[in-house]
């Protein structure tokens, strides 16, 4: 009886592992989605601050010329058109568009490439381009942010206690090892030598802010690092 049970466990475990390996690309895509969203959630605030500042500048420099132009054209005076703009939904929509675009670009990094060859520094040097610089940096931030996002979601679900935080951290690290590293290695190893020097510049311009925000707000190291370097409570 014990032997049968052990065989069932071993076989089901093997089948589960096989299924997980078969769907590994889906896991890599999901990790990217989580990381990009954490960055885009911060981008939303930045865009809102930018739009508010732009509205203030428009008030200062454009409101008066606009009213003068209206008077010349014989139109009745009115509040400037940017006064009634719904800034918060506009900012969220802009962040959403960047998020979808960045997700598509990062997915393309490994979905459109053949199965990963081994990482090779010489091959990477030959592939050097704006995209080849920005893509690995952005993707690493996004994958770290995605893993942290997953571990926070898990910690939110677990009952509060001394084990919830280490368990969530462990899941985050396991996710990085099982899905993050293969996605990063697959992307970097499949970079092709550029045909033009500026190849990939537009995609790098989309990915750079996402990567920067993922590194700045999605990696839980800055607080402990600052505490370590400057002193104080971590």
């Amino acid at each position, binding site marked *: 009886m014990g032997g049968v049970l052990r065989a069932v466990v071993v076989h089901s475990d093997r089948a589960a592992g096989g299924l997980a390996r078969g769907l590994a690309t889906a896991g890599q895509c999901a990790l990217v989605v989580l990381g990009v969203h954490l960055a885009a959630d911060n981008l939303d605030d930045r865009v809102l601050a930018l739009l508010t500042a732009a509205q203030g500048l428009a008030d200062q420099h454009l409101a008066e010329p606009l009213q003068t132009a209206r008077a010349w054209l014989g139109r009745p005076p009115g509040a400037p058109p940017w006064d009634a703009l719904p800034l918060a939904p506009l900012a969220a929509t802009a962040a959403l568009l960047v998020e979808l675009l960045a997700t598509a670009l990062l997915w393309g990094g490994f979905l459109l490439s053949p199965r990963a060859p081994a990482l090779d520094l010489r091959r990477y040097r030959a592939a050097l381009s704006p995209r080849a610089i920005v893509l690995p940096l952005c993707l690493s931030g996004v994958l770290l942010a995605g893993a942290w996002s997953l571990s926070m*979601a898990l910690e939110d679900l677990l009952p509060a206690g001394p084990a919830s935080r280490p368990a969530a951290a462990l899941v985050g690290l396991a996710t990085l090892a099982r899905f993050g590293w293969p996605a990063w290695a697959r992307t970097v190893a499949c970079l092709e030598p550029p045909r033009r020097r500026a190849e990939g510049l537009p995609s790098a311009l989309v990915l750079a802010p996402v990567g920067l925000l993922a590194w700045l*707000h999605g990696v839980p190291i800055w607080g402990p690092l600052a505490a370590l370097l400057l002193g104080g409570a971590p």
Partner: protein
Amino acid sequence: MRGWSELLLLAGLLVAAWTRTPVGAVASGAVALAQGRQAPDLLASFRTALPPALEQSLGVALAAPPTAADPLSPSPALHTAVRAHLGEEALAQAIPLGLDQDPEAALERLALGEQTRDRAIRRARAAGEAQPERLASHRRFLAAAEARQADRMVEQTLALATVLDLSWPVDPQARVTSPFGHRQHPTLHTRKLHEGVDIAVPVGTPVRAAAAGRVARATEDAVNGRYVSVDHGHGVRTAYCHGEALHVERGQPVDRGQHVMDSGNSGRSTGPHLHFGLRIGGRPVDPGPFRGRGLAGS
């Protein structure tokens, strides 16, 4: 059990991406549309602060006479706001949590509990956020439902308290010549919403900030003339229009009762007056009920 662990990890990733991101909303929206159901809101997973919806609580707060305990409390407007927005029981619970010392922290403890707040602060600290104890800094590290709960119980209550603390920018005895609401416009001759009140005051009358805040705009246009808009925080703004001279600049912090402008007759105006406007979460609200609350700074 490595295979099962990997499969569980994968399932967790897929569920988190499906339920917590716009890409997941796109996928679930496609499924919903195929099944003839309503697609989810793509912007719902962004934790943008909700604009406060306070009309009902504001009505309750303004209608209720202050209780005997209120005048003695260190912050009557705050207590009235908590009572009107969250109820008497919530007020009794919030006071021992430090409502009068740090209202934001006390209301957040009441809304989410100490553990959830501490967890979000710890995450904000780990991410290197400045002032991790402030809700604005650690809000992003709350689950979406918790962030919405914090908006409703903390931000909206504080917005209500800010509004209830507003005072009148000129002598409350000055006549209101045009109240808030729809009216026949005196110069455009069309029916329009009058988004404030017009107060008859002579040119040069000092106009005072209705509460402490930061100057959001101090500028001039053909409609409002020379005008000042003050951001009091928590989505509350006041505007003072048709001025003669501005005494503040954009970005400058102002105290309650600070002289921000001299009233005048600039912009689209038929005579010397002050237009006093109030907006909560971007929506115009009648400032009329605050007339009886005395001159700011007196």
